[in-house]
């Protein structure tokens, strides 16, 4: 797929090297897009964000925003707003002066900057907190002040570094919903960095998955959730994922065994199925309709929501979700031998 560099929006290839680490990711987005950079810790997501903001110099590549070349532009001259992971609100300034800081630096007079800041804070539902210093604000309030501060300079590119990571679970739910609304209203490009697949899927229109400094997969959240291409993504979306070679309705896995599928494919392919689709038997089942049957051994058990996740090794390493009752009836314990079965209709194969 070739993508023509859009004259509007973001078009970048970010190459940053430090030490033995090399980041090389291509990113493009149209105005109004919300793109999530998703990846494990140390994948280079934050480095990519810093490169977009001008805080980390590009070793190579290019960076264009609305047609303007920004690669050599210092951070203070870029039309970019950043919401930092721990917000970095200036502790000696009130919420109002924090938000007014950007407009002031971009040339607005004191009263004009304050009026704009007050309008932004009002929009964030923080009208009664304008005079509060950051340490008097709750986590959710501080997050909204940080967002208002980043938006008050009318950026053409909004960057959010783990915007929900500093919040506790309860606040997170509420702030995520608010943030989604504000991002939907934002008419320029927004790029957010997160290691949380839920945040990424709720907030973004498009995911770019980064591992070890490279883009391993990108696309719509639903598409990525259905067709993971790396173990990391499969784990995030909770699927068993295998790579193999398809021949008709059978995929011979690189791991050894064959899997029957409903799709008709040929050549390199992925097979995925959810842990809930796995049935376990103490003895080899007879007359079972499932043609996918493997001899395994229980490696570990842990509770997973209201289910119990059973990690299996053996012919095929996989995860299975069972009810507590089923686990008790089967008498499962680490080391117990079991037969694992998956119906062909529950698997999903797609070209690699």
């Amino acid at each position, binding site marked *: 797929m070739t993508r023509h560099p859009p004259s509007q929006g973001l078009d970048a290839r970010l190459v940053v090297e430090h030490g033995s680490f090399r980041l090389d990711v291509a990113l493009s987005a149209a105005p109004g897009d919300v793109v999530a950079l998703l990846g494990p810790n140390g994948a280079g997501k934050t480095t990519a964000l810093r490169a977009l903001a001008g805080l980390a110099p590009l070793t190579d590549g290019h960076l264009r925003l609305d047609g303007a070349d920004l690669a050599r532009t210092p*951070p*203070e001259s870029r039309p970019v707003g950043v919401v930092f992971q721990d917000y*970095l609100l200036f*502790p*000696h300034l009130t919420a109002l002066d924090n938000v007014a*800081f950007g407009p002031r*630096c971009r040339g607005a007079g004191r009263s004009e900057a304050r009026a704009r800041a007050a309008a932004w804070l009002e929009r964030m539902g923080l009208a009664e907190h304008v005079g509060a210093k950051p340490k008097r604000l709750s986590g959710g309030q501080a997050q909204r002040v940080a967002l208002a501060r980043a938006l008050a300079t009318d950026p053409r590119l909004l960057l959010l570094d783990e915007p929900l990571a500093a919040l506790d679970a309860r606040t997170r739910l509420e702030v995520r919903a608010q943030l989604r609304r504000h991002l939907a209203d934002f008419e320029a490009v927004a790029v957010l960095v997160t290691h949380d697949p839920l945040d990424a899927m709720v907030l973004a229109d498009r995911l770019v998955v980064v591992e070890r400094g490279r883009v391993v997969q990108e696309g719509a959240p639903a598409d990525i959730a259905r067709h993971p291409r790396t173990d990391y993504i499969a784990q995030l979306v909770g699927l068993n994922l295998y790579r193999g070679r398809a021949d008709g309705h059978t995929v011979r896995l690189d791991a050894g065994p064959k899997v029957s599928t409903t799709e008709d494919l040929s050549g390199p392919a992925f097979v995925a199925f959810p842990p809930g689709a796995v049935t376990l038997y103490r003895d080899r089942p007879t007359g079972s309709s499932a043609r996918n049957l493997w001899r395994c051994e229980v490696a570990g058990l842990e509770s997973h929501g209201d289910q119990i996740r059973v990690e299996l090794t053996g012919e095929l390493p996989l995860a299975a979700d069972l009810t507590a009752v089923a686990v008790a009836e089967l008498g499962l314990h680490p080391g117990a031998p079991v037969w694992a079965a998956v119906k062909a209709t529950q698997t999903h194969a797609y070209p690699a």
Partner: protein
Amino acid sequence: MTSTAQDTRRKARRPRAPGRGVPPALLAPALIGLAFLLVPLLALVVRAPWRDLPEQLTSPAVWDALRLSLVCATTATALSLVVGVPLAWLLARTDFPGRSLVRALVTLPLVLPPVVGGVALLLALGRNGIVGRWLDEWFGVTLPFTTAGVVLAETFVALPFLVISVEGTLRAADPRFEEAAATLGASRFTAFRRVTLPLIAPGVAAGAVLAWARALGEFGATITFAGNFPGRTQTMPLAVYLALQNDPAAAIALSLVLLAVSVAVLAGLRDRWTRAV
């Protein structure tokens, strides 16, 4: 069950658990050190000529010296702030070749005997000094043996204290606040002025107090570079030293005044001091 657990925790947090007293091997030298610091000050108070004190302290020479000391020390501190805070920023926030060498040179006056500093100042800024010659020729400015010379001598010894103190505070301050300011459109100078400086203000204040105290007590560089002219360059320490040779009672009186001023300053700035240092 829970309350028992809490009780145990509360007990464990008590400052003095049984058998955890101060070991004599630490206590004895600590007390000797404390006595060593306090006994001389006590002697000063005990031996003070309390009866003659009012007479001693009303002599205009004392007040001239005290006024000169305060004015010069304060001016030297102000000068140190103006050049020292930017110098500290340069050392803490930028990377240039030879930075560690510059840093070492900045701290040199800390260990240099002040008299040597005075000699060096004479060679640099004296009438025949490598810079002073041009100051004299072009602007008719002569610095040695003037009040301005006192200020320069004090700045020379006080500045490193301020730079080291402020640099330490800057290194401890989160540089990402400056990055946040940059993404909001602030130049490095604006970020420094509006974000960094307010954040490090307590450290700057502590550094200024250190520098002021050092300047107030300056003796060696001052007497070498600025001489000992009453009313013009004779600061309190110089007056004390001179008085000790022909009027010990006056020396003690002057010392008491310096002690009182120092205690007053320390008490006045104690809150700032303990917070930042």
